[in-house]
């Protein structure tokens, strides 16, 4: 990369290159500064500040000065079974949403990539969940799941499959029910990303493979999948992170209930920080979430990339 830069630079106009480069650099700073300052003050700064807070006893509305407590918050967290239960639910939710999201979106993207009639309409409609505010998505599905006035139970009754149930307050059904909503809400982005990848698959290769008598599955494995693999990896990794960090959907659907069965780590940390005012402790939770997620993602990406080399 360094060599590419130097060769390009030496090819530029010959009059006093150093002065010109310095001028250009100054110009670049001038263009970047208006965005850089807010990023530093409201994103990078708070992030570092947040990591720092995890090592303090910071609380909301306290008059005494905040003190460093070392790793005390993390030691407490280690024994906080409620938090680890919430963490387990968070992982279940993240995997439970991300995997079906990917498989369903892949199917939809493959369909939308075909020469079907009304494809434009299907593409437009498929994107609807993306445009909706998360709060509205939550409210909408509450109406679907509503035990009496909801369409789900009514359909079940119509089909003669029993009386239906109260999906969002049942101990066994709450988590699966919110997972379905999560899958629904995240499908469009995944589909769009995969579709973008599919449109870069060389058509000739497909046709050549078909001529050689390769079936649909074989063509998918040998032509399509290698082409969309990078996009698929990136979008699954992002989806996993987004899902693990999601908040609004479950806040509206169940607010963590029943009995904590859907209390995602974000909801847990939010309550700790803004209901009980334990800023330091909540920040420590945030750090643990980042750390565990980073490790999981690193393992996933390394594993996948290695898999790619072997093929």
């Amino acid at each position, binding site marked *: 990369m360094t060599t590419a830069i130097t060769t390009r630079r030496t090819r530029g106009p010959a009059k006093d290159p150093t002065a010109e480069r310095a001028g250009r650099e100054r110009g670049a700073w001038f263009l970047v500064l208006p965005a850089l300052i807010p990023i530093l003050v409201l994103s990078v700064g708070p992030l570092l500040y947040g990591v720092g807070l995890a090592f303090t006893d910071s609380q909301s509305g306290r008059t005494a000065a905040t003190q460093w407590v070392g790793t005390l918050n993390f030691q407490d967290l280690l024994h906080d079974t409620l938090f680890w239960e919430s963490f387990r639910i968070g992982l279940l939710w993240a995997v439970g949403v991300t995997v079906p999201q990917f498989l369903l979106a892949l199917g939809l993207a493959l369909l939308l990539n075909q020469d079907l009639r009304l494809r434009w309409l299907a593409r437009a409609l498929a994107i609807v969940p993306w445009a909706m505010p998360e709060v509205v998505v939550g409210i909408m599905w509450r109406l679907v799941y509503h035990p009496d006035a909801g369409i789900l139970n009514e359909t079940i009754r119509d089909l003669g499959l029993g009386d239906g149930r109260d999906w969002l307050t049942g101990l066994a059904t709450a988590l699966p029910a919110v997972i379905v909503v999560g899958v629904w809400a995240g499908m469009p982005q995944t589909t769009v990303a995969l579709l973008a990848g599919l449109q870069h698959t060389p058509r000739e290769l497909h046709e050549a493979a078909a001529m050689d008598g390769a079936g649909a599955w074989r063509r998918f494995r040998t032509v399509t999948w290698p082409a969309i693999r990078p996009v698929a990896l990136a979008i699954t990794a*992002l989806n996993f992170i987004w899902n693990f960090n999601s908040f609004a959907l479950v806040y509206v659907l169940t607010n963590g209930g029943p009995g904590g069965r859907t209390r995602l780590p974000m909801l847990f940390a939010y309550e700790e920080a803004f209901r009980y005012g334990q800023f330091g402790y909540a920040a420590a939770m945030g750090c643990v979430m980042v750390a565990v997620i980073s490790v999981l993602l690193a393992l996933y990406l390394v594993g996948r990339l290695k898999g790619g080399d072997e093929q």
Partner: protein
Amino acid sequence: MKVSKPARAGQYLALLAYLVFLVFPFLWLISTAFKPPRELASLHPTWLPKNPTLDNFRQAFDEQPLLRAAANSLLVAVCAAVVAIVIATPMAYVMARHRSLLSRAATGWVVVSQAFPFVLVIIPLFLILKNLHLINSLPGLTMVYVVWALPFALWMLVGYVRAVPKELEEAAAVDGAGRLRVLVSVTAPLLAPGIVATGLFAFITAWNEFFFALVLMKTPERQTLPVVLTHFLGAEGVADLGPLAAGAFLATLPSLLIFALIQRRITGGMLAGAVK
């Protein structure tokens, strides 16, 4: 490529199943919004309201300060989108055209900012904004939304800038146009459609956002639409479902309309950023 007839039929069927799954909850929301209380309490709800009514909408406006919340949301989202575009466009230009350390650091930030849980950011933000007396203030929320919309805006804009041929700029420079002149009269017009699409997307992001607004806005008269909508959930009897659905439906309309307008460009933008 040829697809056999039964396979084609299967494809249509599968596509139909997808569309039903993706659209039915929204249809149910609309249906609920127009139902009178008696139909909502009925044990056998129907897809189409038998006696459609607008009462739910009236009631939604009476019960909760929806109009004021919508005005707050609009103000915050428009300001955030405009500011985000004004500051992101020059930065995206630099990121796309110069391969400096700064550009790489900025790209790194765009990626990393997606990975951090908001808890870790919201607590310090809360403390910082409190010191600046910007808690429960619309300008404070706007500032947060600007930064919140920046990563995706940068991502899309970098793609659009890359799509403008460098040779055009160089030709203008050879003709004696200054640097700023080149940017204003050559690059900007070509970028305009992309900038508009990015701005509209930033608007939707801010209009839909919930978490920051929930934490930062304390008094009802300053809260945004998503937060006020959750107040409907408070005491939820069957009778309140109608106004809840009506409010939720109205809150979605702006996002849906804008999304319909820019759908193609958003998908194109993701593509541009992804290909590189």
